[in-house]
């Protein structure tokens, strides 16, 4: 029961990742459009602002999927040597800290969105877009990240095998 709920949630994170991928493709198209517009002598006023929004959306929607596939960087140098129960305690502590921090982030990004909506705040760029619109998917992505971390924390508490860093297959850190 718990595992099927877990894989259902993983499906949602994956969906977020796919939507982020769509965002990346859109970002590329948007930039190509602005090049083309310049060549044709059209004015692509808001294109750069929209590119920023699309990037932010793509980034946040992918955060949870990245977390669940061990894509975020952590320094495991010191805890590597610790095994068994002590390691589990440390892992739970890390996840608890991360749950708190990501929930905090999600709450305040939602508040930012709400405040922009309340005040009717507009972008300063040529797009003049109401800022709550691009901020909504960003806040949603942050909430999804918080959910995925909490999800992992609960697994670490009750179903440790599913997330044990000593045994789980690391995809390893991506790199720059």
């Amino acid at each position, binding site marked *: 029961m718990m595992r099927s709920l877990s894989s259902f949630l993983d499906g949602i994170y994956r969906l977020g990742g796919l939507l982020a*991928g769509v965002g*990346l493709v859109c970002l590329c198209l948007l930039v190509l459009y602005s090049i083309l517009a310049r060549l044709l002598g059209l004015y692509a006023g808001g294109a750069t602002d929209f590119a920023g929004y699309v990037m932010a959306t793509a*980034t946040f929607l992918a955060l949870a999927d990245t977390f669940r596939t061990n894509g*975020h960087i952590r*320094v495991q140098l010191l805890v590597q040597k610790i095994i068994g129960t002590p390691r589990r305690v440390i892992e739970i502590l890390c996840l608890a800290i991360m749950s708190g921090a*990501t929930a905090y*982030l999600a709450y305040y*990004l939602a*508040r930012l969105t709400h405040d922009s909506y309340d005040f009717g705040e507009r972008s300063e760029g040529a797009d003049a877009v109401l800022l709550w619109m691009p901020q909504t998917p960003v806040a949603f992505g942050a909430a999804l990240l918080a959910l995925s971390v909490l999800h992992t924390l609960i697994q670490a508490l009750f179903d440790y095998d599913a997330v044990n860093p000593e045994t789980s297959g690391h995809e390893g850190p991506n790199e720059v």
Partner: protein
Amino acid sequence: MSEALSIIIFLSTLFVLLGLGVWVGVSLLVTAILGMALFTSVPIGDAMAVTIWGEQSSWTLTALPLFIWMGEILFRTKLSETLFRGLAPFLRRLPGGLLHVNVGASAVFAAISGSSAATVATVGKMSIPELSRRNYPEHMIIGTLSGAGTLGLLIPPSISMIIFGVTVNESISKLFMAAMIPGLALALMFMAYIVLWSLLNRSTFNPVQDFDMSGLAQRLVDLVPVLLLIAAVIGSIYSGIATATEAAALGVLGSLILSAWQRSLTRDSFVASVIGSVRTTAMIMLILMGAGFLSLAMGFTGIPRALAETIESWQLSPLALIAILTLFYIVLGCFLDGLSSIVLTMAVIEPMVRAAGFDMLWFGVYLMIVVEMAQITPPIGFNLFVLQGMTGRDMGFISRASFPMFVVMCVFVVILVLVPGLATWLPGVLSK
């Protein structure tokens, strides 16, 4: 509260969190939250949200996901084979033979990829098996590869450089111009090291020389798309036709065309490249979020300004300052990846470096080289990780093999300090 105490609190919090294994971005975020709570009366969460939104939706950063995507597409093409087969016939006659292909192919790939690990992985995919089969000593194969792979960060385009430019508010295009000559010079120094090594070890260095030279013309023709891609990306930036972001988008388009032309573009490889890119982007962005908020917290505490003023009051010569910074970054680079050490330190280092009167373009190039070193120093070095995955050798062996390259880079830092024109000349000429 005194600045010294707040520095201690910031640092110890950060080290405890990082040491526990809390994810880097979140460690930075939590440290910043704690610092703001202790030292300011600012509404913390709201300030965090405003800062993060402003940074994450900024147009300048859009070059980053696009260059990452370009690298992901190219990694899935036959580019590594093309590069190896195209460059080997020309480099094999140099003392040291095909080892030079590691450097040459890395330099070429670095000119289309922004990442150092991607460079190692792409070049190594072909050269490790080919060179091993010809009895090249393994420590030289691995060492030259991990060293030359770092060129991915220095030779433009470079993801670390984009992050540096965004952080200190310098033109990314100009940074890309500044890095070109130092990048090529460092590649030449790696090659010089190979020559030197092979001359010193003439008695034992005895690789098989059975290189297949057939179809030479076709191999050169195969290199043309790569060169076109370099021209499209670097050329469009240098000539000023395109901004860094636009060049990246053109690069993505070019890579897709190249991979379609090579028949390696499938639906699956396309989707895999996109998913891989958004994950890498998300990983970097989480760290940037934490770092951006931490520098806001530091700004409120006044630490960076106080530190910069303190160091200014020591009246260090620029040379002494650079020497200290180099040592500092080498130590830091042992434990942190290059990206984290850039974003972590810039809030404090930038005012200091500006106060000392350094050219920020020059400093950006310098920083890329010291950060490159971090890629090949144990225990945390991404090039080492990648090579560990590719060769199955342990970290100790790989880092020992890479050590001479580390020394070469140290020498190069000295050269760059003595001849700053290496970095500042080209941007000066090109922007005329």
